[in-house]
């Protein structure tokens, strides 16, 4: 959270600089099957964010050190392309990416039926090709669709979205400027069928009341995003949406 400066991020009529209402999402487009050599894949365009996720496996888990007798290992990587942001990112080890990869893996492990594939590994690769704000949510959403495309059994899909606070007002799905000048960010990973959470982070400063409002915004938006995910899979597999 940048959180400093007095830049005004809201119009007088309560709308946002990009014209959205406080509880309105950016435009989201999802396409399935975009990495021909992978077992499953998805492209998510979310505002100017662009994420591509691919799934390989299940395959034999090696080295043996990482193999588990009783279940499958999810090997999840989150990476930002060097040209995905204004100031180029050097390739290589990156603590932020490692942490996001870990919490993304934890979220997906909560829905993938790992016990079906003992001693196996499923690789989930998330590449952020263009970044605006909320890339971890965009990446987790893309990974969830790619797993479905790969036919990996899951108890539910994971829908991910963030809310935050700017100029004292709670808003849904911050864009880059809002994120830069915002006071808080609350990204969540939600199971649309059960309403349970499998991913949760938060940074910044939220009073109990603001916190509840941001939470509720995310819960509401999850349904909307879930429909787009289902439609993208249906478009590929000809199911009804």
């Amino acid at each position, binding site marked *: *959270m940048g*959180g400093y400066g007095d830049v005004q991020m809201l119009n007088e009529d309560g709308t946002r600089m990009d014209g959205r209402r406080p509880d309105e999402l950016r435009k989201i487009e999802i396409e399935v099957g975009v990495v021909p050599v992978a077992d499953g894949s998805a492209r998510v365009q979310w505002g100017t964010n662009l994420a591509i996720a691919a799934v390989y496996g299940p395959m034999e888990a090696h080295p043996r*050190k*990482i193999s*588990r*007798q*009783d279940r499958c290992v999810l090997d999840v990587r989150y990476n930002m392309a060097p040209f995905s942001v204004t100031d180029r990112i050097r390739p290589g*080890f990156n*603590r*932020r990416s*490692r*942490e996001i*990869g*870990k*919490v993304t893996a*934890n979220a997906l*492990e*909560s*829905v993938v039926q790992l016990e079906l594939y003992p001693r196996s590994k499923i690789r989930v690769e998330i590449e952020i090709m263009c970044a605006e704000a909320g890339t971890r949510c965009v990446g987790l959403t893309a990974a969830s669709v790619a797993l479905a495309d790969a036919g990996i059994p899951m108890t539910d899909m994971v829908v991910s979205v963030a809310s935050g606070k700017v100029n004292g007002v709670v808003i849904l799905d911050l864009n880059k400027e809002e994120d830069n000048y915002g006071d808080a960010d*609350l990204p969540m990973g939600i*199971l649309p069928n*059960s*309403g*349970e*959470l*499998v*991913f*949760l*982070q*938060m*940074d*910044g*400063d*939220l*009073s*109990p009341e603001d*916190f509840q409002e941001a*939470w509720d915004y995310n*819960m509401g938006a999850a349904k909307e995003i879930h429909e787009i995910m289902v439609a993208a899979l249906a478009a590929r597999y000809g199911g009804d949406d």
Partner: protein
Amino acid sequence: MSIPLVPGLLRDHLRELSERDERVDGRGRLEGRPLEVEVNPIERAEGSARVRMGDTIVYAGVKFQIMTPYSDRPDQGGLMTSAEIRPIAGRNWEPGPPSEESIELGRVVDRGIRESGCIDVNKLCILPGEKAWQVIIDLHAISDDGNLFDAFALAAIVALRNATLPAERFDVGEDERLELSCTPIMCSYHKVGGRFVYDANGEEELGGDERIHITLGDDGHVHSLQKGLRGAFTSEEFNDIMGAARARREELMQLVESLEQD
């Protein structure tokens, strides 16, 4: 960290205890382990603390360096938190480059402190555009019997509250205490045997599911959250532990204030 095999037996045992509302070491669901805090045990650090929670023992050490402010923030100093879980801390911690576990530990503790705004980075400026203080908090685990997160966060905030800016050594004025505007405190809850418990020990961590780390500031405001590990939880479960965290924070705050040195 190497991944130990979790015997199904342990998970079964923890579930049975949970059904009787018991814990493996006899504690109540929201009861912490015995807590010891030592202030400034490290003579070479500018601020330090040793925290023992049951058989978990950690140190935090604060050092200051002079940095050149970033060109887009010429009047600000910096803050860095680094957690190094060296293999002394337990059988499953291995040498080598930082593991994902230690990266997450360092970053979650860092965010709790950073996002609370307790350190005013503007006050760390010595000469705009030229010199500012960089605060470095190093977290060092000696014995890991579970819940390193809370132990590190508590050690870090105690070390910061008792740290002195070594201005004389760097020839930029007189030594003075580091000022903190608030006291962020982390409380962690781990789902063990199907329900969330506070301050899980090593055995509970091994046989448990997801955990949630909550950092709260002075005024009940939330500054940082993190859900770790595999598992799903409901809004009701979250509200329950958020309430517990608010209560526990007050107890820990009293402890921290009682330790103050002058």
